[in-house]
């Protein structure tokens, strides 16, 4: 599945959103597969926005399953509200609240923090993953979440130097309205079955059935990081 997913996500030029439908009980597993595919299989550099749980859980999972985190920046949008004592070896670059999510795209482009100023150099980002989209609706209205995605697409268009692939995993059956909305903004909608096999890929409204592909162990080692320049720059 790592190779199958990475080939589907990275075979295009320009910025795109890829929407993956998966049952909600498999969201974490699919996010881990995505990170392994993009960070290791494709040697990409990415931004992970955590909303559903503090970033250290995903970081711990990646560490245990041998996924290199060197080229991943965490933006943690829930730790400040989680009262969680779990430690982690990788610190998030940004911490923020999960509310008013429509401001996030501009926040990512330029963030002022007291006397310090941070800016994520989006031209060095290859992919963005949000863990997870459905949870946005816990803290924001549907209208606000839709505005977030519209603004996010504008931000993607403004980054002309290279394409940014955004992978969004959600359960279509839980949030049909939001799924359809994002689907219209997406290059591909990918459906994963309960057995974690790819059931189909919809490209610009066209249904492209795929033969089922077996899921390899997500912990299987693929490779490690590279010597790419840092994503985050301190001004």
């Amino acid at each position: 599945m790592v190779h199958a997913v990475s080939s589907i996500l990275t075979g295009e030029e320009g910025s795109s959103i890829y929407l993956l439908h998966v049952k909600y009980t498999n969201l974490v597993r699919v996010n881990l597969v995505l990170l392994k595919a993009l960070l290791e299989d494709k040697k990409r550099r990415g931004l992970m926005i955590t909303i559903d749980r503090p970033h250290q859980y995903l970081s711990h999972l990646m560490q245990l399953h041998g996924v290199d985190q060197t080229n991943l920046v965490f933006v943690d949008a829930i730790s400040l509200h989680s009262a969680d004592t779990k430690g982690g070896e990788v610190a998030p670059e940004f911490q923020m609240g999960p509310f008013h999510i429509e401001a996030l795209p501009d926040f990512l482009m330029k963030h002022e923090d007291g006397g310090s100023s941070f800016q994520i150099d989006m031209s060095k980002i290859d992919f963005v993953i949000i863990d997870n989209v459905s949870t946005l609706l816990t803290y924001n209205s549907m209208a606000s979440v839709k505005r977030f995605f519209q603004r996010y697409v504008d931000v993607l268009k403004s980054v002309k130097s290279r394409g940014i692939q955004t992978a969004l995993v959600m359960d279509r059956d839980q949030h049909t309205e939001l799924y359809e909305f994002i689907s219209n903004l997406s290059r591909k909608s990918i459906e994963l079955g309960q057995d974690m096999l790819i059931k189909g890929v919809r490209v610009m409204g066209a249904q492209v059935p795929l033969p089922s592909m077996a899921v390899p162990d997500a912990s299987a080692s693929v490779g490690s990081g590279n010597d790419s320049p840092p994503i985050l720059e301190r001004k």
Partner: protein
Amino acid sequence: MANAAFPRIESGIPGLDEMIEGGFPFPSVILVAGSAGSGKTTFAQKFLFAGADKGEQGLFFSTLSEPAQWMLRYAAQFDFVKPEYYGKEVIYCDLGNLLRKCTSEELLAYIDQKVAEVMPQRIVIDPITVVSSMMKDDYRVFAFDLTTRLKNWQATTMLTGEVHPGELYPAELSYAVDGVILLMLSDEGDARRKYIEVLKMRGTNHLTGKQSVDITRKDGVIVLKARF
């Protein structure tokens, strides 16, 4: 629309899901409390095997009540227990030796590590109450940290709790968990009947009051609503 934001997983207990709007919230931590013989471990086993039937990964932590070796021998009597799931869809992990010597932080770290390794959608800790008597640290803080972490691992966890005669549920845990289910034995004339009651289920408009239950070889614990 509000319910759409609240995913649930089926409990695997026939008749229970109808009492709790379709299943346990996912993720959540549910306490199943009862005295000896009330069916707690059977309830928890069925929860895991029902998940395994749906392709969901299960992880069973046993503490200091019944070693997995013996628990599995008795569990083998139930039709729903499928030995082919052992070590795959349903993984057993004995915390007994660790509990004899560890601190609460070490115990949390071990559970964290095992959960990250297995990535279960369903977890059982059976029984959790024995931990309170072994913890030198603040048990309430431990219970808070444990339940917070278990939910952040994106699983629904069932904690079983032993109660003493005259006690309904372990009070310290009841505040930290999202749901409390009581399994009760009641003397009624010459018979000792079994009941279930959903005392608490966050985010759920659950049925209140005691419902009669039975334990069968085929299904384990079942709620006998039809008799009311």
